[in-house]
């Protein structure tokens, strides 16, 4: 039974890593930027959901607000901040690293901003779903209705975006613009606009992660920071440019952590994330589902 319990714990935390990884992958795919601000964006959108819940007293109404807010924040960052940055530093290696550093700065900025507005105290963002595990016979499994909604949420977000990417013109434009911006412009795609849409999608995915995971813990300006690290490791395991890979990577990492926690101890889980990251980079640098070509022109 312990093995199954551990597996279930891993599955629900892994689903959250998966959502964060999806957000990172969506930004990476559309602009080739590793977005460190994602944790801050997710927190900001979760606070937004928290405010809506305080007014409407409905968790379910607050979620779409968090999602739209998350999308808007992300779109703003890309369209206003990163685009003007790109205009200033358009050539050379600086142009590739500048946006990444900018996102790091934004993370700090957003975090102190949320601290100023909401204070640093822990607050509760409560879901009506039970956090208590389901009963199977007399045994309570460590998997609650809230955990179930987290797993469903991660699969749903993955499914929606994978469908958009594969079957719609918008998805085609998103893929084309990320692989070959110049050829895409010559084909008539408004690449800047499309990239911003990619960011908005990512912001939405991050908001889902924040709004679903927070009821299982608490909310504070840095309560999602660890999630950024796990999300990043999950994204790398999954190949950085694959949506399905991000979800698989998240679940694998979650299950891995759960087993380490169970059989080795809590003290090593955090360093385990980095060890796993380094091992993946050595053994299979393009991740489990990363495409060869995608990496090459990255």
């Amino acid at each position: 039974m312990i093995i199954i319990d551990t597996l279930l714990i891993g599955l629900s935390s892994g689903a959250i890593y998966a959502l964060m990884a999806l957000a990172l992958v969506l930004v990476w795919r559309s602009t080739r930027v590793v977005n460190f601000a994602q944790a801050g964006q997710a927190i900001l959108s979760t606070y937004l959901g928290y405010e809506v819940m305080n007014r409407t007293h409905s968790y379910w109404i607050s979620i779409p607000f968090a999602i739209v807010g998350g999308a808007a924040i992300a779109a703003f960052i890309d369209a206003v901040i990163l685009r003007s940055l790109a205009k200033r530093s358009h050539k050379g290696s600086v142009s590739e690293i500048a946006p990444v550093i900018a996102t790091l700065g934004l993370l700090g900025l957003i975090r102190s901003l949320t601290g100023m507005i909401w204070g640093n105290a822990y607050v509760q963002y409560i879901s009506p779903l039970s956090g208590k595990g389901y009963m199977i016979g007399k045994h309570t499994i460590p998997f609650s209705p809230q955990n179930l909604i987290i797993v469903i949420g991660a699969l749903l977000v993955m499914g929606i975006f994978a469908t958009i990417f594969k079957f719609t013109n918008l998805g085609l434009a998103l893929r084309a613009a990320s692989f070959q911006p110049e050829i895409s412009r010559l084909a008539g795609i408004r690449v800047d606009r499309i990239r911003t849409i990619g960011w908005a999608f990512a912001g939405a995915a991050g908001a889902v992660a924040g709004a679903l995971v927070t009821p299982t813990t608490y909310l504070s300006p840095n309560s999602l920071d660890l999630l950024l690290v796990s999300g990043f490791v999950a994204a790398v395991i999954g190949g950085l440019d694959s949506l399905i890979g991000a979800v698989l990577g998240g679940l694998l990492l979650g299950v891995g952590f759960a087993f380490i926690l169970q059989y080795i101890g809590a003290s090593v889980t955090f360093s385990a994330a980095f060890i796993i990251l380094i091992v993946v980079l050595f053994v299979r640098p393009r991740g489990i589902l990363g495409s060869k070509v995608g990496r090459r022109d990255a």
Partner: protein
Amino acid sequence: MSALDVKDLSVSHGAITAVKKLSFSIEQGQLAAIIGSNGAGKTTLLRALSGLIPSSHGTATWNGKSLLGEKPEDLVRAGIVHVSEGKSVIPELNVKENLALGGIWRKDKKDVAVATEEVLELFPRLRERLQQSADTLSGGERQMLAIGRALIARPQLLLLDEPSLGLAPLIIEQIFEAINQLRHRLNLTVLLVEQNAMSALKIADVGIIINVGSLVTSGPSKELLADANLRAAYLGY
């Protein structure tokens, strides 16, 4: 007034002026071959005309409207379509998706379907490979795909940058033959950049010869082909 009018156009890459005060014009429905050796400024010229890079001096108009300062994505909507140098396809996408890109911005989806069908009839090899990733295509097939995608945008002015690059003579013949048929059938105006002077001038109405960014001469392609001095100095055969 000519359809395409370029006057005193200069384009620089930093300190290098790659196109220097270039002037030429083309009539509606004409095919003009732009001939010049490596580094002559041919690619630079096309990139400036399609909005990819800014020009520093001069004017360029298409049916009276200025091209300079417009974005490529807007020029495509105005019928000016550029097939860039080196098999301009997206290798990460399959053939079908690459073709779909050509009509992605167009509202008239029925005509996109008609245009796609026309392209597949023109290049049947593409039809057999619709699901195949574009990076598995041969050089010639890639060039067909790039031109096919451009045609689905229903261009009026087609800017082609060295479609013969890296292709075997037999394939070059086929591609040029296709270009020639198309432009008559669709009444296209074509600017064909080439190092392959002989093949290009054979199908062109006019030839424009440039050397290190400046105009050497221009005129009816038959006359250029017959000019022994030019042949020795610039046409390389």
